[in-house]
């Protein structure tokens, strides 16, 4: 499947257009992030499919920020799915990456993955290989919306109760780049207890996902307690869309509503 991607990246490297391709490497049955700097190395390339499509995805954009910070004058290519491209569009606006220094190498997600993710757009514009999948509506959000107020509270408090404050959701998030995180601020979230302030911890994170969350699902995959984080953050995106007409990761010229003083 990855022959087109491989050929494309090989060309970019041969033509000297990029210093390296930030993608995934497979070795001894394990898949992990890797910077490919030579075409010969590409034989180990993986697209992040271990036993099921997309089950070995990593926050490549996050790693790219670290790479670009050390090598700001070099151009890199990066493996992107639909969600990652949404991430790039926002990161350019947040000035964590420079658009002229990033070449996205896009892959489309198969139906199985799109359905599991309930993805709005399971393929990037810069599509090199893979299908242009269909949008999938979220049933999980609708399910919670269908509950009454009391049941909803019961539901969420129960889910958040299992939280062990591992910070996995925040650590793995490709859009979280703050040097000082509100969740570690003692005046906002109490320290020294598990589960952390319920529901303050998770609602605080949810508020910070406004204009930031690209619905990649890495947070939910990293949660050892199987908390339905995506359902919460998807609702955040819905509210922002309904109330402010803003969709995260689609408009290169419009800033997130919480990033602009004034305006409604």
């Amino acid at each position, binding site marked *: 499947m990855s022959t087109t991607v491989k050929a494309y990246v090989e060309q970019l490297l041969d033509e000297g257009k990029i210093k390296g391709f930030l993608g995934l490497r497979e070795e001894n*049955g*394990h898949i*992990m992030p*890797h910077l490919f*700097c030579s075409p010969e190395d590409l034989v180990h390339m993986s697209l992040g499919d271990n036993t099921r499509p997309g089950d070995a995805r990593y926050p490549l954009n996050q*790693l790219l920020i670290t790479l670009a910070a050390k090598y700001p004058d070099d151009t890199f290519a990066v493996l992107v799915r639909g969600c990652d491209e949404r991430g790039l569009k926002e990161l350019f606006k947040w000035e964590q990456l420079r658009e002229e220094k990033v070449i996205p190498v896009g892959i489309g997600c198969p139906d199985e993955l799109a359905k599991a993710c309930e993805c709005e757009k399971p393929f990037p514009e810069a599509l090199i290989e893979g299908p242009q999948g269909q949008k999938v509506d979220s049933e999980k959000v609708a399910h919670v919306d269908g509950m009454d107020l009391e049941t909803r509270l019961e539901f969420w408090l129960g889910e958040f109760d299992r939280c062990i*404050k*591992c910070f*996995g959701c925040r650590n793995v998030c490709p859009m979280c780049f703050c040097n000082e995180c509100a969740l570690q601020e003692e005046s906002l979230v109490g320290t020294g207890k598990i589960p952390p302030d319920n529901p303050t911890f998770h609602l605080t994170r949810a508020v910070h996902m406004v204009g930031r969350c690209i619905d990649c699902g890495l947070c939910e*995959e990293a949660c050892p307690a199987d908390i339905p984080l995506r359902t919460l953050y998807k609702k955040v995106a819905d509210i922002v869309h309904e109330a402010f007409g803003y969709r995260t990761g689609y408009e290169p010229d419009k800033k997130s509503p919480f990033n602009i003083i004034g305006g409604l």
Partner: protein
Amino acid sequence: MEFKSVLTTCPYCGCGCGLLLEVLDGKLVGTLPSKTSRANEGKLCIKGWTVHEFVTNSKRLTQPMVRRNGTLEEASWDEALSLAAGRLAEIKEKYGPDSIAMLTSAKCTNEENYLLQKFCRAAIGTNNIDHCARL
């Protein structure tokens, strides 16, 4: 220029979560859970997530330290080992082997734990060996 992930096992507890150390030009820049490791399936606890922090921490000991007149001072391996062996022998002689106890750790390998309990039971001669997991 080199950026790679190094697959390793978390040193903290007996779970043995697979984690990836992110290395940029030979320097540790971050930690990620290994999605393909069966023990943890892409998840980590807070200790595993912060492995890269302690590895590069400036407070890590680089030299043995000996307490002289109440203050910890840098010493040579020979001095430190001689002091430890000498004092343990003295205490064993004066107060008996059961006056000494040893505490080992999940951070050690099975082999290191085996060695310590062997030292405790055979060399010191006491059963006072325990483990941090029991605290």
